[in-house]
């Protein structure tokens, strides 16, 4: 089982759009996938029309196992389940460590119902300082959308510094350019610079800014499901392939 986190210390860069489509692509390729919505706003749950069940957050009397397994919801797509945004960060920490431990009761409980996962994908909210360290160490790979602007460049450098300061392997970081706009020549220059500066950290694939992705909010489904032939869907497909090759 692999854990992949979709993370950026900057908001609105396309983390959720990536997580949702990546999850879809993984499941479509036959990987049993669990998408964990860590955003209290429930952004990725929204795209899958899953209503967060509020009750579960407070019901501490449940066993961990039951709390987690009961919170999981099937998406409308085969092989893709959602853990909606109804956990506290502390709960989530527990959840991650349980999923990591193959002998934990949670793993066994999931196995028993053929619900064990090949990939767990985390859609992280922008400000998770309390959690980020744990996510970084739990994850096998961290996919980081970067909008090619000077400001984003600086944020990305901060992330690498954080990794170095905490002795986390930089190898885990898989950045890619998000929301790129062909007409803005500034984008092109920034991308060139960053690729040079952070050799190997950046994937070749980039996700351009397109109205198809914007419309996901109306369609409430991954663009790969609603417009599989669109340029956006194909780009997410390549992103999936490239990332999986790296992991």
């Amino acid at each position, binding site marked *: 089982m692999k854990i992949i986190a979709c993370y950026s210390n900057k908001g609105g860069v396309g983390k959720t759009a990536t997580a949702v489509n990546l999850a879809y692509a993984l499941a479509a390729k036959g990987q049993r996938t669990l998408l964990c919505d860590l955003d209290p706003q429930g952004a990725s749950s929204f795209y899958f*029309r899953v209503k967060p069940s509020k009750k579960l957050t407070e019901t501490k009397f449940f066993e961990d196992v039951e709390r987690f397994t009961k919170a999981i919801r*099937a998406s409308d797509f085969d092989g893709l389940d959602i853990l909606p945004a109804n956990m506290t960060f502390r709960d989530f920490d527990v959840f991650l460590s349980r999923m990591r431990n193959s002998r934990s009761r949670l793993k066994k409980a999931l196995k028993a119902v053929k619900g064990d996962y090949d990939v767990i994908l985390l859609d992280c909210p922008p400000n998770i300082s309390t959690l980020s360290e744990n996510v970084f160490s739990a994850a096998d790979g961290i996919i980081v959308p970067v909008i090619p602007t000077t400001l984003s460049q600086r944020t990305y450098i901060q992330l690498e510094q954080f990794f170095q300061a905490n002795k986390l392997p930089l190898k885990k970081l898989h950045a890619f350019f998000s929301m790129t706009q062909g007409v803005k020549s500034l984008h092109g220059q920034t991308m060139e610079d960053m690729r040079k500066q952070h050799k190997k950290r950046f994937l070749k694939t980039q996700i351009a800014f397109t109205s198809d992705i914007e419309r996901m909010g109306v369609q409430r489904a991954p663009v790969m499901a609603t417009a599989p032939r669109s340029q956006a869907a194909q780009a997410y497909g390549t992103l999936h392939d490239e990332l999986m090759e790296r992991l």
Partner: protein
Amino acid sequence: MSLTFLPSYLVRSDALDTLSGKPIGKLRARLTRGENDFPFKVLDTHDEHLRRRGICLVRSGSDLLLWPAAHGPITQYVGKDPVEFVTDLPDGPVRQALGAVPELRSLLPMAQGRMQQVLLALVDTEEKTRARAEFHVLTAQDGSAAIVQPQALRGYDGAYTQLIKALGACGAKTLTEASVIAALNPDHRPYVAKPDLKLGAKTTAYDAATGIIKAYLAVARRNEAGIIADTDIEFLHDYRIALRKIRSVLSLFKDVYKDKQTLALKQQFSDLMALTGRLRDLDVYMQERQFFFDLLPESLHAGLERMFQMFAEERTAQLATLAAHLQSPAYEAEITALINRFDTCHKLRPGPEGDRNAQTYAAKLIWKRYRKICQIAEAIDDQTEDEMVHELRIQCKKLRYLMEFFAPAFPKTAFKSLLKPLKKLQDNLGLFNDYSVQQNSLTAFLDSLGTKDHDRNMQLAQSVGALIAVLHQRQREERLKVVDSFAMFNSKETQQTFRDLFHGGKS
């Protein structure tokens, strides 16, 4: 992602309209109908082995579909060729799900028509799917029905429960409770090789005997078409068993019918059976082919090959003769007359025991037979003539038939506790007999070889001779087990149960 293996259901085909017509709790049904319909055939063995196990197997074009399954049906591509025996299927998901189907039984089309796939999704106010079901609507000439494979979605147990409830309200039954074949063909009567016979407390011996014979005449008839078409060898086997049971009722139920009539009837059934004997022997040989080859070293295989070729030719001829007989007006007239006779009891006069209560009559017969068996067995040790062992086998068979005929009149568990060890004993005696019969008929086969083609016949004779030797050895091995087998059967408990059930507890 589905939680576990869920049952499949059978439901009226108009259930889809009912389900999509009004909300189900807070959910609504969304239907997606497949664009095309496809031909289908429901496959099962003559005795509906699959249906009885709650399995529905469908062939559509080059695919096999099987329910129940976790998601839609389990499917396997099988190409264009007809599928006859499950054992001939290439390995695959359907083959695996079928598991152990009686090897000798062929799959037959039990119903056919056109099939359409319809997906049902129960969605909430956000248009999120909370439960799903895949319908295969089967439409045959005289009936239609839908196989439903519901699918639970993780985290939406409530919706699944509602779906099952809604299906239940439409009259859905699981495939273990309902028959797809019967739903598509309302006139269908399932074939039952061992009919369940009822025996009332007041049933007379005459009525019991007549009831059994009627039931088995019907069984025999249900096998004729399969013999003629050479569908599989079990048709002939069941046909013979049915006739043999009738004959044993006539001989075991002494004085239930008038003596003269009994004798004539016995002769009539023996004659009917006689026409089938050789074909059955050949069927058994063909079945044992591999076994025989395994018994002999490779150097002797050529001879065996030739023998089996001769058997195959003889079988073709025997089958043609029997098929012609079964299709002849004379046979039709004879069997119809027999059925009428036992239906109307015309020219079927009760004998001195006819009015006896069937239950007390049965107890008497069974006790007598059991005593006889004990007597024979007591005289058998490892030195006794084989004849005695054969006699023991025949008596055990008679006892078994009697017990099976009258089983409904006695307490189930006690009865079962007797039948189980009896079957074991019979297995031993049966093998002993099979080896002996095979030796005899192989010897007869050798004798029948002419003087033509001397060289090849020499080779053949060598092989068959070696085979007889091995069979003889096997027979000896079975023979040595007989004394122990009988002791195992006739335990203290068995003796007591026989006394209790059939002799008022007395010895």
